């Protein structure tokens, strides 16, 4: 008679990306008739806070737990605890170095950032100076997107020089100030890549305040990015499918809890979108406000 419940422990909850994941998860919950809880720490450094959340989730004895681990090693003891309590574990957003999670729903951030690099190279004509405003120097997504982008440029576009990589914590204002300093120091710069929603909007604001025509490539979605792409202020951006991540995670979790088998890897994909395809149905479906 007890309703099934799925506890999602994410890497954050306030930012729009995570809210989109939550939206997908809630939708799946409604569709499948299960209770879904969703929470995450204030920022992506708080590994121990996430462990405390996991502990609280375990105490509630849900039907399944889904985790976007900030550090996959740190949570392993608790995952074992879940295993021995018979609670199935799934991973989302990024994988966990362990065979405990029965399924992983994630985006390949390295490949996604590499695609951003290719688009950037194309937009600036294959040569010149560019910069990166990243959202984190230490989180998995921050590192993957930075490295995916940087390595692709290094390997494929020797004419392009990355002059600086700065970190703005995904804070809109901080990223704005960083962008302005980059533009002041490098007047010849041709393009800047912002690695998440806050960074991308910051780059956009900074460029506008400096009256710069620099090419802006963003990541993720949100109303401001969509508007900027429509108006041409932002050349384009990579979007993941966070709603899909949330939905697929819960769907798989429910299946596992019912004893069904699911695919080990659920690739939720990523897409490049710009002025030309922003309103195409397959893109519009993965964008969020």
């Amino acid at each position, binding site marked *: 008679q007890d309703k099934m419940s799925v506890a999602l422990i994410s890497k954050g*909850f*306030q*930012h*729009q990306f995570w*809210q989109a994941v939550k939206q997908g998860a809630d939708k799946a919950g409604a569709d499948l008739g299960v209770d879904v809880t969703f929470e995450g720490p*204030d920022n992506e450094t708080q590994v121990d806070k996430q462990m405390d959340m996991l502990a609280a989730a375990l105490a509630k004895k849900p039907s399944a737990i889904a985790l976007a681990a900030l550090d996959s090693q740190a949570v392993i003891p608790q995952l074992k605890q879940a295993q021995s309590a018979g609670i199935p574990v799934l991973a989302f957003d990024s994988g966990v170095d362990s065979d405990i999670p029965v399924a992983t729903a994630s985006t390949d951030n390295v490949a996604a950032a590499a695609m951003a690099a290719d688009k950037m190279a194309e937009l600036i004509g294959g040569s010149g100076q560019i910069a990166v405003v990243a959202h984190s*120097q230490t989180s998995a997504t921050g590192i993957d997107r930075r490295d995916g982008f940087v390595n692709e440029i290094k390997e494929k576009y020797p004419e392009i020089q990355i*002059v*600086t*990589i*700065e*970190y703005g914590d995904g*804070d*809109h*204002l901080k990223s*704005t*100030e*960083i962008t*302005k*300093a*980059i533009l*002041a*120091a*490098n*007047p010849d710069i041709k393009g800047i890549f912002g690695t998440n929603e*806050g960074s991308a*909007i910051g780059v956009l*604001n900074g460029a506008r*305040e*400096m009256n710069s025509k620099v090419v802006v490539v963003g990541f993720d979605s*949100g*109303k*401001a990015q969509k*508007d900027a792409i429509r108006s041409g202020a932002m050349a384009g951006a990579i979007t993941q499918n966070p709603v899909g991540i949330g939905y697929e995670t819960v769907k798989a979790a429910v299946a596992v809890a019912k004893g069904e088998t699911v695919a080990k890897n659920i690739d939720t994909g990523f897409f490049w979108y710009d002025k030309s395809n922003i309103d195409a149905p397959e893109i519009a479906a993965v964008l969020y*406000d």
Partner: protein
Amino acid sequence: MSEKQARRGAAQQKLLAFASLIVLVVGFSLASPAFFRIDNIMSILQATSVNGVLAVGVTLVIITGGIDLSIGTLMTFCAVMSGVVLTWGGMPLPLGVIAGIATGALCGLISGTLVAKAKIPPFIATLGMMLILKGLSLIVTGTKPIYFNDTEGYTTISQGSLIGSIIPQFPLPNGVLILFIVAAVIAWVLGRTVLGRYTFALGSNEEAVRLSGVDTDRWKMAIYALAGGIVGIGGILISSRLNSAQPALGLGYELEAIAAVVIGGTSLAGGRGTILGTLIGALIMSVLTNGLRVMSVAPEWQTVVTGAIIIVAVYADQLRRRAAV
């Protein structure tokens, strides 16, 4: 005669407080040609505007011997309320600005009441408010930013340049102008009015003020409310710059503002402080951040150098003061 001497000494000291700032500016100018250019200087000033306004607000509270940890999230909440009135309510611009400032004043009043009437230590009262307001911003907005696209002229509040339209060579952003106006008004309030006098007196010896027959509770509440209103202005400025109220923003801004105040020579023990010092403190911080970025110092080294320079700057100030005595 001797009094004149003493006053000259004090003035000198104030002038000397600029020294760290000037050393920084000169140093960065020599280190990078990109630093001392009008557009970069404007960027630095623009970057000071929000933190500067918050710092001016919290200076008042700190002079009373209190502290306000809620300013960061309150700033955001004020921006959100302004967004609610303007974007959701479709009201005219001035009403939105008033809503933001009024929200700040009201929340400040609540903090002040908790401190003055309920005798809750300011640290706790404003820590509680910080958490409450953080949650409320997320709840009110449904965790989504509110954009000001429909409100014409909202971005001009901070990003336009009234002065630039008169003197094109000097495109001082309005946000900075507003910071200077707010600072000037508050400096005047502190130096010339009854409210200002009681602000210092409360921080100097609250019990003595109470025993002078002053209704200390009421004044304290007024000061917190005023500080809250100023934070509301900060909320308007940041949302005007971002053209949106970002509900997740704000945490951590309080520490930066308090740091500016303390670097500016205001004592956390209360009783002394100046708005000019706070402005200089805020400027030191944004010059540092901008300068190190313009020099392309590696981000992890930026943090280390910032920490070290803050210590050295305050130490130099300390030495000068001791020498002045």
